[in-house]
């Protein structure tokens, strides 16, 4: 990967045929990095495209794949997707700007997301975000440390992460760290900054933002191992625990039953 353009700055790459994206009101243009996507990535690209009946369906996964290489979506990443899928730059940009998970600035080694939707917020999510923000000295959607280097962290507020029964919830690279407090979240982030990787409450061992993005793109390695990381939390099993303790069950199924006939033709 060539990094002759400082991260956070953009320019038209005179060597390439890629047009300079228009500067639109309020929307940062995509940054040029000069990234050349290697053979491995190209192979993964073909693997993803082959999954779908129509190739355009591969666009969302491909943008995730671009993030697995670059840690965000660059103008070069946009051009790469456009080229592989026979789309225009504008078509790919329209998609890349629509979805929250596509980042337009380089992310840290880890992406820390704090749920601040009403439920988590009332249980402490807002306090967690402001504690982390204070500790890292950054606001949401900013990165502490040189993006991509060990211990660098991008902080964001997230909407409901579908784990409300475990609130307040923090995710790191989308792995769940449940039932957090400002103190526990601070400890988690301090560990991450020191290059350590505390195990998520529910989910596979922590890797980094880019590795997770590759999996989200649908390129898994060690899947058989990773699925074995524990996820059965107390909260998930509350009903089971009661049923077990009080011997409650659903009505038992009959030995057999009559399958209904086809409806009469009208």
């Amino acid at each position, binding site marked *: 990967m060539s990094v002759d353009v400082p991260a956070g700055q953009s320019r038209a790459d005179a060597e390439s045929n890629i047009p300079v994206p228009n500067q639109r009101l309020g929307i940062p243009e995509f940054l040029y990095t000069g990234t050349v996507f290697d053979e491995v990535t190209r192979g993964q690209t073909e693997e993803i495209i082959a999954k779908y009946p129509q190739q355009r369906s591969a666009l969302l996964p491909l943008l995730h794949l671009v993030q697995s290489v670059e840690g965000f979506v660059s103008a070069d990443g946009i051009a790469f997707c456009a080229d592989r899928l026979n789309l225009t730059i504008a078509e790919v940009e329209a998609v890349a700007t629509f979805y929250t998970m596509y980042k337009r600035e380089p992310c840290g080694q880890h992406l820390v997301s704090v749920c601040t939707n009403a439920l988590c917020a009332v249980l402490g999510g807002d306090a967690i975000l402001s504690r982390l923000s204070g500790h890292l000295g950054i606001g949401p959607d900013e990165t502490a440390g040189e993006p991509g280097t060990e211990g660098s962290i991008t902080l964001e507020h997230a909407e409901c992460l579908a784990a409300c029964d475990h609130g307040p919830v923090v995710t790191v690279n989308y792995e769940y760290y449940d039932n957090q407090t400002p103190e526990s979240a601070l400890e988690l982030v301090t560990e991450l900054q020191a290059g350590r990787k505390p195990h998520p409450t529910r989910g596979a061992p922590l890797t980094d933002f880019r590795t997770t993005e590759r999996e989200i793109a649908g390129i898994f390695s060690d899947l058989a191992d990773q699925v074995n990381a524990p996820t059965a939390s107390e909260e998930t099993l509350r009903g089971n625990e009661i049923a077990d303790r009080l011997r409650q069950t659903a009505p038992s199924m*009959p030995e057999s039953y009559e399958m209904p006939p086809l409806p009469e033709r009208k």
Partner: protein
Amino acid sequence: MTSSGASNEAGAVVPPSGPDDTPAVMTPVLTRRWASPQSWSIATYRKLDGYTALAAALKTEPGRLVELMKNSGLRGRGGAGFPTGLKWSFLPPPDGKPRYLVVNADEGEPGTCKDIPLMMADPHSLIEGCIITCYAIGSQLAAIYVRGEAVQAMRRVAQAVREAKERGFLGKNILGSGFDCEIIVHAGAGAYICGEETALLDSLEGLRGQPRLKPPFPAVAGLYARPTVVNNVETIASVPVIVAGGSDWYRQMGTEKSPGPKIFSLSGHVTRPGQYEAPMGTTLRQLLAAAGGMKDGIPLKFFTPGGSSTPIFTPAQLDVPLSFDDVAAAGSMLGTTALMCFNETVSVPWAVWKWLEFYKHESCGKCTPCREGTWWLAQVLRRVVSGRGVMADLDTLTDAASNIFGRAFCALGDGAATPVTSAFLHFRSEFEDLVTGRTPPVIGTRELVGAH
């Protein structure tokens, strides 16, 4: 069932003779394997009767499976409660060209937290449900659209697909039946609107996830403009048990018009928040009794029956049977049975503001009432909760909300107006008190800067 007797044959609400605070009785059906060791593995699944329903289904005429689903009374678990068998029967007759099943695993409605645990704990029930459904509707391809952030759920589902394929439950000529079926696991990229079924289809086609004009409905022109069934994870995971037990068995649980068990998700100020699978028609009072009551004994102030898009309820509705019709009759919606419980310490205007920030962020921008309306609602609410509101703001809020409701292109807009209108219905004075200064601002200016 003891805990579901609160509605009569016609589904009308029977006024409770007195609050029934006996703890809800659990009926683990979809959750019954969740506590088993390695519950996600095909070995555990098969040990606990997994893939036996598939074998039975493949020996049945597809049309009869659709009838079975109709008879079971299963209603969609994604929020709207549309009868599943009926939806399947809307597909036009096979024409030899592709048709699809798309599973909605985009779980994003605030408060909703059942599908991701289901996919993590028992992914094979979803896979088996997909295969049976595909067979019943004459499809050879299912796509599971998983919310992009749900990476561990995605891994479990992807691994389940691999395992099912290795054992011959997926692929060509499944169990010697001549039926072929494949499943694609597809990740979204963080957009709540992609849970709306037509936006989901656009997203799956590699476009911005914006809703389509209906009709045509997906049953006629869905994925790649071909006939498509879109169903929620919990709906599809219910298919194998209905095939295994039959519709009469299924109807032993729940109410006449909302049969079956339901995964209720309790969250918030509850002693033991979590997932509780009980018959449809169980009340929140009974669920809370099972969950150890409100945390630290601080009383309940308001709750959502089915996520932030469903009108809020107060303790006066604690005894409403949680079934589609009973909740509707009481003025809200069952939605996703996401029971977010807030205690008396919580400011209602504050919660509504937080939710509106969410809707503003997630509005897809396609239609004006929602795109502009959510923006204005969030701004005005923010002013009110920070103590800088004026009385006219309250009229602006109700006005803007009623201008969105019913005029937006899709149900997200209605969902955004709902917290405002329902909060004004039950708690208008809290908004007034913030304006008059009777209650101090809920948030300081400093906090306003950081959060959104």
